[in-house]
């Protein structure tokens, strides 16, 4: 964990509603893994008492990136930053994805949930681990990944304006049933999507790892503010108690089996 004053390399709109910011942050870049996040101070004069957490979307050569959607004050400030500006960030935070050696990884992303999934995708490409990536958005303009598509990258839109119509779940059946070996899910996205993926995995007895989000004050296990209910005290936990886990320290990646189905 480092508190680094990163320099912004670029900050660009990559689709109708998503921005990507590349940061030079050598210390964090050196230590980070797919699924981890950073905690951002949007401005030295920030008048909120919490930083803003963002998943790491890529890592290479001392640089990391984030992919974000402007939703409020913090992300608006981020959106106005220019190359050369500096940004106070803490990271890498949280646990990360492992376990991609035995089963066939299927990566599932919804909306800005693409950030950590993209990082994992890059990582698997580098390690030459064959896998599938399914990404869903509401409509065509929100996709920024269109040019990169190939047989193992599947895009969906809620309105059918691009790729498969519907949610990422609609693309799963054919991929999963087409595999001889057992598959494993890595998913990040809005709660309804994660719940659907978790339910699908449970039904088919597939291992499934979900990246969750909650409000965070500290980002590294101190404030106990980011607790979620868990149904099972799994082995991957670091500070698990019986009933609650901390998303920032025990997560953000959880075994789907530990999360209540809903």
């Amino acid at each position, binding site marked *: *964990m*480092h*508190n680094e004053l990163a320099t912004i390399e670029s900050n660009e709109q990559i689709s109708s509603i998503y921005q990507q910011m590349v940061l030079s942050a050598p210390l964090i870049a050196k230590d980070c893994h797919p699924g981890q996040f950073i905690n951002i*101070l949007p401005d030295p004069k*920030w*008048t*909120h*008492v*919490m*930083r803003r957490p963002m998943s790491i979307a890529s890592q290479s050569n001392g640089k990391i990136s984030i992919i974000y959607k402007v939703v409020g004050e913090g992300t608006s400030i981020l959106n106005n930053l220019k190359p050369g500006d500096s940004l*106070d960030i*803490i990271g890498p935070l949280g646990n990360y994805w492992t376990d991609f050696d035995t089963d066939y990884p299927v990566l599932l992303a919804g909306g800005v949930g693409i950030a950590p999934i993209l990082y994992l995708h890059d990582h698997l490409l580098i390690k030459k681990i064959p896998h599938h990536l399914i990404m869903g958005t509401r409509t065509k303009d929100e996709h920024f990944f269109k040019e990169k598509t190939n047989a193992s990258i599947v895009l969906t839109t809620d309105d059918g304006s691009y790729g498969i119509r519907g949610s990422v779940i609609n693309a799963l059946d054919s991929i999963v049933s087409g595999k001889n070996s057992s598959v494993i899910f890595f998913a990040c996205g809005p709660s309804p999507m994660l719940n659907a993926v978790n339910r699908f995995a449970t039904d088919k007895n597939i291992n499934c790892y979900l990246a969750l989000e*909650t*409000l965070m*004050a*500290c*980002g*590294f*296990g*101190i*404030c*106990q*503010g*980011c*607790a*979620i*209910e868990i149904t099972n005290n799994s082995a991957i936990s670091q500070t698990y*108690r*019986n*009933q*609650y886990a901390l998303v920032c320290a025990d997560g953000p990646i959880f075994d789907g089996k530990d999360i209540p189905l809903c």
Partner: protein
Amino acid sequence: MLTIRIGNLTFASPVLTASGTFGYGDEVSDLVNVDLLGGIVTKSVTLHPREGNPPPRISETPFGMLNSIGLANVGVEKFCKEKLPKFKKMDTHVFVNIAGYAIGDYVETLERIEVEDSTISGYEINVSCPNVKKGGMQFGVDPKLTEQLTRALRDKTDKILILKLSPNVTKIEDIAQAAVAGGADMISAINTVVGMGIDIATRRPSLNTVFGGLSGPAIKPIALANIHKIYKSVSVPIIGIGGISSAKDAIEFMLAGADLVQVGTSNFINPAIGINIISELKSYCEKENIKSLHDIKGKLEYQ
């Protein structure tokens, strides 16, 4: 210059970190050298392990936050095994914050820690807890109960005993005097202010417990007023807490009557904030030619 002597304890600087906002001092070791702090106060420890409250437990408010963590902690037994030994490696004052639901809880927790061979400097007693025997009324709103609790703990330890007061009372002076009458060595204040948030989209409270504790810069004026009232009513040393995020804030609390300060919520924005404040305080003393920060305690000027 920044050294403050209180009883037979010497604080290298007057800036400590507040309970619940700095863990046990080890989680931040990557970012902060805790030995540079005047001291740390642990997350509240209770007799039995506590899962804490159901989520959501925190929310943001204008220049502040609400929390209802529910005293989530491993319990005193595990605390003594896992956390207490780590403090031996720290070269700063550690105060163990104790919470409970009956006087007996507090006493047993303190006694359990007393039997350990530890290097802690003392205890901070969180009286903002519902007293199950008195229908959930908090210890810290009742002078008699505060005095009883303090005396019961005083009997069991020779270490520094700090009573941490709640601002949610009509007259904090009465509670401070009761704590001193019961034998408290010091008073710290304030704990969080009762508050509430609502999400109009879901029509639900922003905290699962409906009511929670407000902290951060928003409460600084309230904290200052309470410190000054305490200063005018008791003569024991005082620790100022509430919305501190700069040396300027720390100095305000000292002028109002505090000997030491604790930094809480601001640690979330910057875990090194305590240490930054310490170096700012040093520059301030140099610039203003202040020999000892103790010289400004209570030096608020008015008729």
